[in-house]
């Protein structure tokens, strides 16, 4: 269900190939209409919100902007967001590689079902994603009594924020790797093994170089989603200022207190992260489409 996965499709010629060909060329008025309507929609629904974030952030001036970013609550929110991403990304990276190796390189019954299960967190509402950890670790939950007696805080504390972040970013790296590694097959790995390479050597020298760009994009996307998650984290956070607030939650609190410029200032950092993510995605796609240019492995 990864709609936004990298496709190594042949971009050669791109759109112009259709415009040069008389059979696939549309009348000029059709072209103008399609581009006009499509771009208007794009401007209103995508570009305008993006511009709004940055302009609203600087509405009260540059000083207010930077002051909102360095005040203690904002800094602590930034720290917690970085921490959650720093734990969630490596965990899901190891899982993604492991799942892709099992699914792409071996045959076993129930494989399709396993892929569906890996997709599951993606289709679960973020609010439900948060709720499940409350049901397991909350005071009313399965381990609630035990955790309370031993004075271990998971829900409304950092561990549940990390867990919720891991859940919502669970499938991304696996879903980048699985289709690519399935398409590549296992011939190269089998050749390496039969030439005497060890399993680990084969993995590091054959498999990883073959998937490095998809892997990189998976990591970038997981990181962006980890830092930006709102619904799931909101349910398990408890909104304790300076303790359990991540950046998106901090944005919400500032916004609800009518500190709009400050809210948009913190939001602009997250928007910047989204733009960097998209730029890296475009670069990675370009590398996948042009594998031969200045390749130094």
């Amino acid at each position, binding site marked *: 269900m990864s709609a936004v996965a990298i496709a190594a499709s042949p971009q050669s010629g791109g759109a112009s190939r259709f415009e040069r060909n008389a059979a696939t060329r*549309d009348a000029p008025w059709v072209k103008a209409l399609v581009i006009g309507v499509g771009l208007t929609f794009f401007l209103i629904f995508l570009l305008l919100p993006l511009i709004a974030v940055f302009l609203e952030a600087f509405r009260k001036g540059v000083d207010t902007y930077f002051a909102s970013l360095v005040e203690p609550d904002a800094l602590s929110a930034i720290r917690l967001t970085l921490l959650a991403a720093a734990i969630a990304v490596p965990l899901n990276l190891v899982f993604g590689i492991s799942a892709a190796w099992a699914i792409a390189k071996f045959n076993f*019954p129930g494989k399709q079902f396993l892929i569906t299960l890996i997709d599951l967190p993606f289709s679960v509402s973020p*609010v439900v994603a948060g709720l499940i950890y409350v049901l397991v670790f909350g005071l009313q939950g399965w381990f609630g009594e035990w955790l309370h007696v031993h004075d271990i805080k998971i829900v409304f504390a950092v561990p549940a924020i990390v867990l919720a972040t891991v859940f919502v970013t669970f499938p991304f790296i696996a879903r980048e790797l699985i289709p690519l590694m399935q398409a590549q097959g296992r011939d190269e790995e089998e050749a390496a093994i039969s030439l005497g390479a060890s399993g680990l050597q084969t993995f590091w020298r054959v498999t990883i170089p073959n998937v490095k760009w998809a892997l990189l994009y998976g990591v970038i996307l997981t990181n962006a989603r980890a830092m*930006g998650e709102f619904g799931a984290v909101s349910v398990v956070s408890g909104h304790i200022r300076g303790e359990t607030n991540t950046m998106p939650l901090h944005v919400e609190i500032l916004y609800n207190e009518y500190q709009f410029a400050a809210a948009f200032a913190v939001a602009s950092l997250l928007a910047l992260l989204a733009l960097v993510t998209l730029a890296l995605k475009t670069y990675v796609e370009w590398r996948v489409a042009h594998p031969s240019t200045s390749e130094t492995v």
Partner: protein
Amino acid sequence: MYARETRVLPGFGLSLGYTLIYLSLIVLIPISAVFIKTFEMTLDEFWAAVASPRVVASYKLTFGASLLAAAINVVFGSLLAWAITRYTFPGRKLVDALIDLPFALPTAVAGIALTAIYAKNGWLGQFLEPLGIKIAFGPPGVLVALVFIGLPFVVRTIQPVLEDLDAEYEEAAASLGASRWQAVTRIVAPALLPPLLTGFALAFARAVGEYGSVIFIAGNIPMVSEITPLMIITKLEQYDYRGATAIASVMLVISFLLLLIVNGLQSWSSKRTGRTV
């Protein structure tokens, strides 16, 4: 038959074992908590939670707005995908790159930005309100947010199919005397049907569970503009864990069904177009 196959590559047991354990710990066991807790409820209690008028009103809004948003995205998403793959125009690469913005932009950021645009004194709101069009803090606001988050799903499912569609078929149609309109409606459109349906289902599935971008712009008026995920939050804030769990179980079942539908559509789509998504 699987066991008979000789495995040259190592690490099958380790990688599959780790995958299953991690999947169970992070996803399956916590999700099963929702169903186990739901089964501890009596039927009356469950029904009272999931079928109260306020919750039913939230289903109507959530599913109605999600369907409408997915339909709007199918129309404008295909136009955008067509423009990006078939035409050259300045800024095409930039538009192509920014299509994924709703996927990368945190939902809370999208929510406050859309509210800033459509509120009464907002960027567009100040022109729309005098015309009697009120978008923010009501159901239309929910729709706008769901259109925003669903767009990349439609464009990115149609785009690769349009790119791979061989010009040969349209050439053949043209040389046999078909008009451009006939070629597009009889040849291109049937090939686009599976990805269009897949994109629709993906955008719909995403919209049904969406929370962050909607919550700021919806106004959250009981019986009018409350979405179902918000009802779960409301119950939790009232310490009604059982009520929240019951609604969550309904949403989970719907997510499962949508996931199965999407998977079915995708395998149908890849059979029809000969490409694996």
